[in-house]
C-alpha cells in the first residue's frame, strides 16, 4: 500500500513510461487508412516543433500533423482520464465493477453536452465541457441517491448505474432526434459510442491539461485512497477526512469524464478494465497504481483508435465498439472472479 519496493528506480521507471507513451503516439500517427512510414511521422513532428526543414509531401504532413498527431494525443489523454476515474471510483466505492460508464456518469455527461450543444441550455454561459460536467454530477448524484435508497449494498450502485445510464442515454437520443437535422443518426452514435474523427488541435489543449491535473490530484490523494481498503469508517479512523476526499475525488473523476465525453463522446469499459490490468501489473498501492493505470489507459486507447480505423477498410468504427468488444468479456471475467476472491 504505502511502502515501496520498486525493482526499477523511480526515474528509470518514469523514463520508460514516457518512452512507451511516445512510441504509442508515434504508431497512432503512422497507422491508418493510408499507412505513413514512421520516418515521415518523425520528420513531420520535427518540422512542426523545431522548424527542422525536412522536405515532405504536403498532404502527408497535413494528415499527420492536423489529424493523426492531435487525435493520438487526445486518445491518450482520454484513456488516462477514464482509467484514473475508474481507479478512483473502484477504490472509493469499494466495488470492482465501478467505472464512469457503468455508473452512468458518461451518459449524464453526454446528456449535459447535448443539452448545451443542441438545446442551447445556459446559452453563452455554459460551454460544452461545463454542460457535460453538470450532466455528469447530476447523473452521479441521482445514481448514488438511488443506490442509497436501495440499501447501499455492493450491487445496488451498479444496478442504479444501469438505470441511470439507460435514462440519460434515452434523454440524449431524444434531444438529438428532436433537433432533427440530417446528421442526427451519426450524432447519436457519437454521443453513445464515442468517435475521435472530429478531434483537432484545440481539443488537445483541453484534454491534456485536464488529464494532467486529474493525475496530479489523484496522486496527491494516493495514500488517502489506500486508506479506503477496509472501508470509509476505517479510512476515517486512519485520519482521512472522508467527506472531503469523497467530494474532491468524485468531483475530479466527474470533471475528467465530462471533459473527455464533451470531446470524443462516451466511451465505455476503459475505466473498468484498465485499473484491473494495472493492478495485475503493479498491485494495489495507489502511488504506483494511478500512474500505471494512466499509462496503460493511454496506450490502450491509442491502440483501440488504431483498430477502429483499420478493422473495416474504408470505414471508421466508433471507438466505443472496440472498447466494448474488449471490455465486456473482461467485465464478465471480473464478475466471475469476484466470487473466488471474497
Amino acid at each position, binding site marked *: *500500500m*504505502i*511502502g*515501496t519496493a520498486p525493482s526499477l528506480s523511480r526515474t528509470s521507471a518514469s523514463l520508460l513510461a514516457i518512452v512507451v507513451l511516445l512510441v504509442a503516439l508515434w504508431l497512432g500517427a503512422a497507422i491508418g487508412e493510408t499507412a505513413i512510414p514512421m520516418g515521415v511521422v518523425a520528420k513531420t513532428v520535427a518540422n512542426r516543433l523545431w522548424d527542422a526543414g525536412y522536405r515532405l509531401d504536403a498532404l502527408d504532413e497535413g494528415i499527420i500533423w492536423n489529424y493523426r498527431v492531435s487525435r493520438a494525443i487526445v486518445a491518450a489523454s482520454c484513456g488516462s482520464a477514464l482509467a484514473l476515474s475508474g481507479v478512483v471510483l473502484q477504490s472509493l466505492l*469499494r466495488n*470492482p465493477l465501478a467505472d464512469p460508464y457503468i455508473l452512468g456518469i458518461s451518459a449524464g455527461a453526454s446528456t449535459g453536452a447535448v443539452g448545451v450543444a443542441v438545446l442551447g441550455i445556459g446559452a453563452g454561459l455554459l460551454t460544452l465541457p461545463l454542460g457535460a460536467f453538470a450532466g455528469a454530477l447530476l447523473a452521479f448524484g441521482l445514481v448514488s441517491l438511488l443506490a442509497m435508497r436501495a440499501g447501499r449494498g455492493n450491487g445496488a450502485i451498479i444496478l442504479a448505474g444501469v438505470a441511470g445510464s439507460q435514462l440519460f442515454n434515452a434523454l440524449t437520443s431524444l434531444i438529438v432526434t428532436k433537433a432533427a437535422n440530417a446528421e442526427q443518426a451519426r450524432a447519436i452514435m457519437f454521443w453513445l459510442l464515442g468517435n475521435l474523427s472530429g478531434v483537432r488541435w484545440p481539443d488537445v489543449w483541453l484534454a491534456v491539461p485536464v488529464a494532467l491535473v486529474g493525475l496530479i490530484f489523484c*496522486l*496527491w*490523494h*494516493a*495514500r*488517502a485512497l*489506500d*486508506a479506503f*481498503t*477496509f*472501508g470509509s*469508517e*476505517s479510512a*476515517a*479512523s*486512519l*485520519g*482521512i*477526512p*472522508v467527506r472531503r476526499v469523497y467530494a474532491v475525488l468524485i468531483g475530479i473523476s466527474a470533471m475528467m469524464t465530462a471533459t473527455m465525453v464533451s470531446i470524443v463522446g462516451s466511451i465505455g469499459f476503459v475505466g473498468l478494465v484498465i485499473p484491473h490490468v494495472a*493492478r495485475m501489473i503493479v*498491485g*494495489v*498501492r495507489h502511488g504506483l497504481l494511478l500512474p500505471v493505470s494512466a499509462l496503460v489507459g493511454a496506450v490502450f486507447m491509442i491502440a483501440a483508435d488504431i483498430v477502429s480505423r483499420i478493422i473495416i477498410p474504408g470505414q471508421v468504427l466508433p471507438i466505443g465498439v472496440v472498447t466494448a468488444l474488449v471490455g465486456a468479456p473482461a467485465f464478465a471475467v471480473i464478475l466471475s472472479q*469476484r466470487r473466488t*476472491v*471474497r
Partner: protein
Amino acid sequence: MNLSACNVSWSAGGGSILEDVSLDVVAGEFLGIVGPNGSGKTSLMSLLAGLRRPRSGRVLLDGESVDRLGRKEIAKRIALVEQQAETGERISARQAVELGRTPHLGPLTPWSAVDEAIVDEAIRNVGMAKLAARLWHTLSGGERQRLHIARALAQQPQILLLDEPTNHLDVGHQIGLLHLVRQQQLTAVAALHDLNHAAMFCDRVALMSGGRIAALGRPCEVLTEERIRTVFGVDVDVEHQGEGRCHIRYRAPGCPRGERPMLKRIS
C-alpha cells in the same frame, strides 16, 4: 493522555441511542464496555473515536474537544479496531499493517526506514511475522483481527479502541486476542459481548443499558447477579475471585440457584 465523554447524547433514525453518557478513561487501564445488543456500545465507541459528533455534550481528548481536532491529529493518538473490517483487494498481510502509518505520512512524505521498522515491530508484536507475506483473503478470521490490531499499533496511538474485536472468533482466538491487547502498554477501551471476558481482562467495566451507563467500576462491583438479571434478563451465579475479579455462571431458564442441570443428569 486523557479521553473522556462529558454528557454525550446521540440519536440516529429519529431514535435516541445514547442519553447523557459521561465516562473518564483512566490512563493505562483496560476499560470494558458491556451491555445488551442495541444498548449503545458501538455508538459510544464511534463517539470516543471522534468518528461521529454527539448531538449534545463533548468528547475531550487531553482536554480538547475532538470536534476541533483534525482527523489526522486524532488518528495519531487514537486507533480503532472495528468489528470485522474486510476487503476484496488482493493485499498482503503486511500491506494491511502498513496502512497504520497513514496519519503520520503526508502526500509528499516518502516511506522511510522508520516506518518500515514500526510496521515490523507491530507485526512481530501480534505474532504474525511468519504470515506477513500471505494474501489477506487466505488468512483466518483470528489472523485478520490480529493484523487489524497490528495496523492499529503501527499508528502508534496512546489509546486503543476496540469495537467487539472478538466477534466471530473461536474461544481460543478470543482469549488470545484479549490477552494480546492486555499485554500492550496502552490505554485500551473495548466493547465486549462476553461478560466473563470483561471480568477476566478488564480493570474496569462500564455496563450499558438503554443508552445509559448503568454501572461503572471494577468487574466484581459492576457485574452483580441483580444487575445482570435486570439488564440482560438472565439469572446467573457470580463467583468472586481475588483482585476485584469474578466469574459468571449462567443459569438455564427455570433452573433454581446453584444447580447444574447437565452435571446432575450425567451423574
